[in-house]
């Protein structure tokens, strides 16, 4: 079970993708924030989109088919 304090992130292949996703997710009223990719998830220097884990299914449904992303991970 996830509580309101748990976060998840979507990982992308580039900043362009992350910015595109932010627009889509924010646009549908779901709170989110672009942050540095935590080191334990990837050694890449990019950014990822953080949101409340409770919104995971909605975020996934919003992005799927619209914008390529690597994966969604719980923090």
């Amino acid at each position, binding site marked *: 079970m996830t509580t309101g304090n748990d976060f998840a992130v979507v990982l992308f292949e580039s900043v362009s993708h992350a910015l595109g996703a932010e627009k889509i997710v924010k646009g549908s009223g779901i709170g989110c924030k672009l942050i540095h990719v935590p080191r334990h998830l990837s050694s890449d220097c*990019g950014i990822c989109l953080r949101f409340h884990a409770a919104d995971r299914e909605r975020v996934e449904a919003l992005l799927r088919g619209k914008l390529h992303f690597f994966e969604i991970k719980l923090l």
Partner: protein
Amino acid sequence: MKTIYLDNAATSFPKPEAMLSAMTAYQRNVGANPGRSGHGLSIDAGRIICEARESLALLFHVEDPLRIVLTKNSTEALNIALQGGLRPGDHVITSGMEHNSVMRPLRFLEGRGVELSVVPCSPRGEMDPEDLKKVLRKNTRIVVVTHASNVTGTILPVEAIGELLQDRPDVMFCVDAAQTAGALPIDVEKMNIDLLAFTGHKSLFGPQGTGGLYIREGLDQRIAPLMMGGTGSRSEFEEQPEFMPDRYESGTPNTIGIAGLGAGVSFVLEQTVEAVRAREEELASRFLAGLQDLRDEVILYGPQDASRQTAVVSFNIKNVTSSDAADYFEEQRGILCRPGLHCAPSAHRTIGTFPRGTVRFSFGFFNTQQEVDDACEALRELVKRKGKPGS
């Protein structure tokens, strides 16, 4: 004396205020390197680039903005398409009205074993798509044509060419839209354009040093990047990323320029391309009409029909070199124009003005009817000055 700028085909001037303020706002308030970190200013810089890409996608009817690679001008875009897309043994077709940013890469590639066909155009710069059809070969890989000539303004039949290439999915259709992006409607779907090279500093009202290349989905594997390096993405790998647009966008981008380009494109979208076109067509039409009584002394090139050309008009005055005419226009009338060959010797051969060249007046969105009338008056004056007809 006030200056009348009639060199918009070289670069548009002046630019919309919004373009200038977008550039200063970026440098004053943002300034960071986009996509190289996750801090707020870096993300803001990335957002500016994202928005510019989205506006461009809207303008050209591109569904996925990430299919647009940002470059420093259309020359770089054309070099990616041509040098990246052609191998020895491939065949490429172009028109007889091209700029050197198409002809020079093609002549270079010809020296490396690429076969080149140049479809002849009429003395007015017009091309019959049937002539292009005739030179298609089994190994044709790219057809590259300018959307409109920078010498005569002649609009080439891009839609018809796109149509006739429909049954050749192995041929990539590349359009040089340097003269038309922002000035004429462009729809990459309707026109079946696979590769669209555009420059930012002409009718898109961006600064110099901006441009781009649209690459249709599925074609990037057929086009090798010309430059490789840091992209801010996939930093753990020493190989160039394969995905768009990073595959073709190495090194820190021209963010301040792209900020200006984005604002310029937004300006075009607000005005609408149709309104820009209507205004420029009216200016060109007024200029052509204003020269009617000088037809014995002034030789006009191109279609001489504003509906079939951009707001670019080339002419010569009998017994006056193009450079002398340009000097006269500037010194006596404050008119800034461009004489000579306009980086397009091939087009000048087609219209019969090589190596003499022409005087080119190119009108833009910010020119006024009064300026067009002043330009006609200046021509009339120069004709009068040089003496009686035939002298």
